[in-house]
């Protein structure tokens, strides 16, 4: 009986098909919002679905000099990493399926797997554009990863636990975004860096390096990377919402909160222009990491003072 429930939860809900579909809907909402900010009409609601099916049904071209195992394996690993991370996060406002002490760290590293797979895929791609894209993705990973981690550690330290479930329960009565505004801003911008959205889209800058690390991917591999990215969008937004905007609570209100975050991100995307990769790194380490550290210092001092 238990196995059946686990299998169902992995295949359909909350991970699996429903997560992939909601990822597509979030991606559509993001594109539509950006389009509205640019005074356009924007894509239709089924656009990401049509894109994915089309890519899956296309021919997959394998360049000559790539490693077969890496070329075919990396998209699968990337997608499964993002899907596995969803097991520990409160997706769509429902309590996480599994949780254990320290799953926050595991979920964050699983989320980074997608970027690392993209980097490896670009290095494997045997094209100069994908190589430059790979270097940029990995450089950007070094830039935002530490501040983002620190920003999510703030709520964890305030709650005194490293379990996502317990932190989100704690956050229900303590609105972290009021208590730790700096951490919230760093987490939000770290989210955009993680998803390589503008202004942090130097790794896939189509005006300079064609399509970045995924230049040589076509068909199935590209589709899997796309799905992985939209799944990561849902997981990361859910994580930030659960930590900073008042926990899980009611699924409907949770959805609304994630949409507000999405609206804010879309606004930043259409307002700001692309940063150079050195500007990105400089910004993160000069301001992002320092601000997050300051936040953590304040939390430690306050906790010590209150105790």
């Amino acid at each position, binding site marked *: 009986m238990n196995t059946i429930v686990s299998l169902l939860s992995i295949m359909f809900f909350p991970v699996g098909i429903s997560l992939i579909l909601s990822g597509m809907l979030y991606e559509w909402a993001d594109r539509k919002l950006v389009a509205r900010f640019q005074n356009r009409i924007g*894509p239709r609601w089924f656009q990401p679905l*049509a*894109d994915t099916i089309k890519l899956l049904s*296309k021919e*997959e071209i394998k360049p000559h000099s790539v490693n077969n195992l890496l070329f075919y394996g990396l998209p699968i690993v990337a997608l499964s990493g993002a899907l596995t991370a969803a097991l520990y996060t409160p997706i769509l406002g429902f309590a996480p399926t599994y949780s254990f002490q320290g799953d926050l760290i595991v979920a964050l590293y699983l989320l980074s797997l997608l970027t690392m797979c993209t980097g490896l895929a670009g290095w494997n791609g045997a094209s100069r*554009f994908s190589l430059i894209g790979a270097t940029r993705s990995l450089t950007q990973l070094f830039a935002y990863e530490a501040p983002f981690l620190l920003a999510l550690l703030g709520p964890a330290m305030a709650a005194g636990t490293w379990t996502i479930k317990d932190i989100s329960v704690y956050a229900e009565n303590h609105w972290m975004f009021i208590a730790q505004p700096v951490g919230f801003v760093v987490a939000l911008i770290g989210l955009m860096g993680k998803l390589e959205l503008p202004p942090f889209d130097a790794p896939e800058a*189509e005006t300079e390096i*064609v399509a970045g690390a995924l230049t040589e991917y076509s068909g199935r591999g590209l589709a899997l990377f796309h799905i992985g990215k939209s799944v990561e969008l849902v997981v990361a937004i859910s994580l930030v919402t659960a930590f900073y905007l008042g926990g899980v609570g009611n699924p409907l209100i949770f959805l609304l909160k994630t949409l507000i975050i999405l609206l804010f991100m879309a606004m930043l995307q259409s307002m700001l222009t692309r940063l150079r990769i050195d500007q990105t790194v400089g910004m993160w380490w000069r301001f992002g990491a320092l601000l997050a550290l300051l936040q953590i210092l304040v939390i430690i001092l306050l906790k010590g003072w209150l105790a």
Partner: protein
Amino acid sequence: MNVSQNYVSQLMGRITTWARVNSPWAIHFNSGSCNGCDIEILATLTPRYDIERFGIKLRGSPRHADVLICTGPVTRQARERLLRTYEQMPDPKFVVAVGSCGISGGVFQGCYNIVGHINEVLPVDAFIPGCPPRPEAIIDGIVKLLTHLQNGTRPEPIQFAPQETA
């Protein structure tokens, strides 16, 4: 068994056709045009015409693209590059020739450095006439291509009179 298999494959075919019609990603190649057509294509991509409504997106990499939008006559220099770009695209792929030059060589017809119109090098699926065509015409051409795709009818190949060489 056979009947149900048939039914499933038919259904899959319809789903993939639907997806293909609704998400044509384009790549733009200038094989020797005077740049007039390219400016009109870029105008088509601006928010005013917003072709993301139809799911059309401009991609940098030929590996991601479904539709190759070519402009201009094919010069001897550009022929190899045009062919290579076309061969890098995964199947199924379509070619749209934009502008009079792409249809017949236009004002460049008979030049010493010209191979000819695009149909001499690649199998073109849709021609969009004009010098240069307006963005509305380009959108109309692509939508016509998509309608043909949906109905499963490839547009008729156009027969040209053989080019006179001076």
